[in-house]
């Protein structure tokens, strides 16, 4: 949300009151062959739709179909990853001949069609946009795509092809922009509605919406502008040039976020890591094509920015599970590691190193014990030594460097007994208490600095792009505020060192 002058707001109302929808359906033989063969295969295995072998395998095809149909890029563009997915599908279905011989030919035909499409190097969606630009000779032209992380790529591609300053945006960005004269909307309305972007049609940001998609995708009915069950409406219906209801296909898992890249990201981070260092996490897709893992635990707290709050309370630490699309998370983008640790060490000065050495000593012994006996074995042993709170979740927390000591001294004593440091338990307890106090003070200082930044920073970039950079004085390094776009439904185990570390992602 940002301040919008009345004149710009008036443009939105004008666009909405006189919006015309036009539809351009494209056809390409190589693409049609793929779509038909995939539909034939889907029908042939419809009785097996609950079988994980087929849901996984079909997903490889369906996701590529979705990207082909929703992204105006040349089908050979590496970003669409057609070659990689053909290989992945062939690998997955390598056992199809023995498991489902009656469907092996159908699978092979789809793989061949995907390869043929890749080799055809066609670009029909871009062709349609570029050709239509001549018809709509207007100043401000935009293209809206329903995919995540492709907008900049599409913009570069279309600007090169059209030799014009056409913009490519996601719906989130579109909402913050002044209405266009013409807006090309790629793909079927369902894809937008499913992601809470149905307003692209019901609160249009152009006086001419041109739906561009493969024939069949652009004939769907537009979403209703009626929001409430009982209401009076003064919303002008859009003028739709050709409403023909299309036969609905099974689009079950086509248009959601493709989380399949997550497993690769997890595997890359987990190489050679102790199981004691793994924590449950979810992947958060962030604005500007980034992603980050955040802890899934209710006990974890993530700094978030609440632009809605009063100036004194804009930085709020919330449990990660409460963070959803639209939330603004603050992640460390420079300086590496844990911000609180860095600031706490600065507070402790020369005392930091010996205290950290003690911390590392008991943590490494505990992690080694987990590696040796497993989580369940260590939990049982801690209980034998008198721990009342030992369980899988708490043990993971105690292994993590962010937990300096247990809440209850009896649990700490049980750990010391289990790792052979019982004689030095008091010394460790006191040392960890000192670290704990330094961490709390560091937390307060960071919060104050963040509050100051949030109070004085220009949040325009955050509002327009979903991302803003902050630098903290006093050695705090750099932080980036990201708008959260999506959250993975699946919980995965990643090394704690990688929590909150943003990286580039496309989904």
């Amino acid at each position, binding site marked *: 949300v940002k301040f919008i002058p*009345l*004149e710009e707001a008036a443009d*939105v109302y004008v666009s909405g009151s006189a919006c015309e929808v036009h539809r351009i359906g494209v056809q390409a033989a190589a693409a049609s062959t793929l779509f038909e063969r995939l539909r034939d295969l889907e029908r042939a295995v419809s009785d097996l739709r609950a079988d994980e072998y087929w849901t996984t395998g079909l997903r490889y095809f369906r996701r590529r179909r979705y990207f082909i149909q929703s992204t105006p890029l040349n089908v050979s563009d590496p970003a669409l990853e057609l070659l990689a997915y053909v290989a992945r599908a062939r690998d997955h279905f390598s056992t199809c001949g023995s498991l489902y011989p009656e469907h092996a030919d159908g699978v092979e035909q789809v793989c061949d069609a995907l390869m043929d499409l890749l080799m055809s190097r066609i670009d029909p969606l871009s062709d349609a946009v570029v050709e239509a630009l001549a018809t709509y000779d207007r100043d401000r032209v935009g293209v809206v795509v329903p995919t995540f992380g492709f907008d900049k790529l599409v913009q570069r591609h279309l600007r090169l092809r059209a030799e014009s300053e056409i913009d490519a945006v996601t719906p989130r960005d579109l909402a913050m922009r002044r209405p266009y004269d013409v807006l090309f909307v790629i793909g079927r309305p369902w894809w937008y509605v499913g992601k809470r972007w149905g307003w692209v049609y019901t*609160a249009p940001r152009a006086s001419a919406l041109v739906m561009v998609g493969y024939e069949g995708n652009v004939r769907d009915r537009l979403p209703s502008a009626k929001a409430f069950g*009982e209401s009076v409406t003064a919303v002008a219906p859009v003028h739709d040039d050709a409403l023909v209801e299309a036969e609905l296909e099974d689009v079950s898992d086509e248009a959601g976020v493709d989380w399949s890249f997550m497993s690769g990201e997890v595997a890359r981070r987990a190489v050679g890591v102790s199981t004691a260092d793994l924590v449950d996490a979810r992947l958060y897709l962030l604005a500007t094509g980034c992603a980050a893992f955040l802890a899934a635990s209710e006990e974890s707290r993530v700094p978030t920015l609440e632009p809605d709050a009063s100036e004194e309370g804009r930085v709020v630490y919330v449990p990660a599970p409460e963070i959803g699309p639209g939330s603004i998370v603050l992640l460390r983008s420079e300086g590496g590691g844990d911000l609180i640790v860095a600031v706490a060490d600065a507070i402790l000065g020369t005392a930091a190193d010996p205290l950290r050495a003690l911390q590392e000593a008991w943590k490494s012994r505990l992690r080694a014990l987990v590696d040796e006996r497993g989580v369940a074995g260590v939990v049982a042993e801690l209980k034998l030594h008198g721990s009342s709170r030992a369980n899988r979740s708490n043990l993971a927390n105690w292994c993590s460097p962010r937990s300096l000591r247990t809440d209850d001294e009896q649990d700490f004593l049980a750990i010391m007994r289990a790792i052979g440091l019982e004689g030095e338990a008091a010394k460790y307890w006191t040392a960890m208490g000192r670290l704990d106090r330094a961490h709390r003070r560091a937390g307060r200082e960071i919060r104050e600095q963040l509050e100051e930044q949030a109070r004085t920073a220009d949040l325009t970039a955050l509002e327009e792009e979903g991302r803003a950079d902050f630098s903290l004085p006093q050695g705090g390094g750099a932080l980036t505020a990201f708008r959260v776009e999506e959250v993975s439904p699946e919980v995965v185990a990643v090394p704690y060192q990688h929590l909150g570390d943003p990286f580039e992602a496309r989904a």
Partner: protein
Amino acid sequence: MGKPVVVELWYAGNRVRRRIPAWAEAFVRLGASAAGAFQDRERLVAAAAVPTRAYAATLVGVGAVAARTPAALDDEKPSTEALESHFRLLSSLRPGTTVTVRSGRTKNVGTFEGVESSGREPLVVIKQKGFRQMFPKSGCHNISLRGRSLSCLFVGRVNIFEAEMTGSDVVTRDSMPLDSVLKVGRFAARRDHDIRSDILPAAGDVPARLREAQPDLIVFDGTAGFRHWRENWRNAPWLVILDRTSVHFDEGVQLIEEEFAERASEQEDAPALEPPPGTELTAFWSSR
């Protein structure tokens, strides 16, 4: 509901000063109609689905404050229209509202009790220390509302409201910012006691100055504030602005539908409000 009061507003459109467009004026009228909208033991709950949140809540608030601000009454010979307007304003007060009653050269504090309608004409009933006094329309100019509760409480993004209310983008006829009408407590100087509206951030706690507030209208600008504060001020009329482009739009609609399911009366009796062009409006009576 009170007759809509239109405030003349201007904006800097295309480098030329212009009257605000029809949709914007309709939001002002909507606020004027919604403020103090009570019916027996019920209050108005309304929600507007808008294509952009820009200015919607602020303009609704301008209408609410303008409608609830006492017209300047000529103490000796008020016009019939002024008396009519003032009587309507008094009639819509919440019972228990503090008023000032002028009697000759003295002024006494009293509380508004209600409207007595059993006689030939309706009478405003004011309770004063030890007695009750009834005023016909012709004598209502002796009742003053100075120092009364807020006309409008905004809930939403303070910095956005600040830009809309104190900036020079939209101004009054005499080129004053909208705050000159709204008289927002948050932006007021310490010694400024003429406060007619205030702003509550969408998150956080209620500031001390607003704990006892009795707003004539609460304008929720977006789902976040509505979700956070909807259990507060269930005695006041609500108008919820829901931006269709917000990720929380569907949730906001759902919350309104929940309120609708608990409405006090059937829709044949629904409040008649005019939806601004480009918006969808739902309105119903809810118990208070």
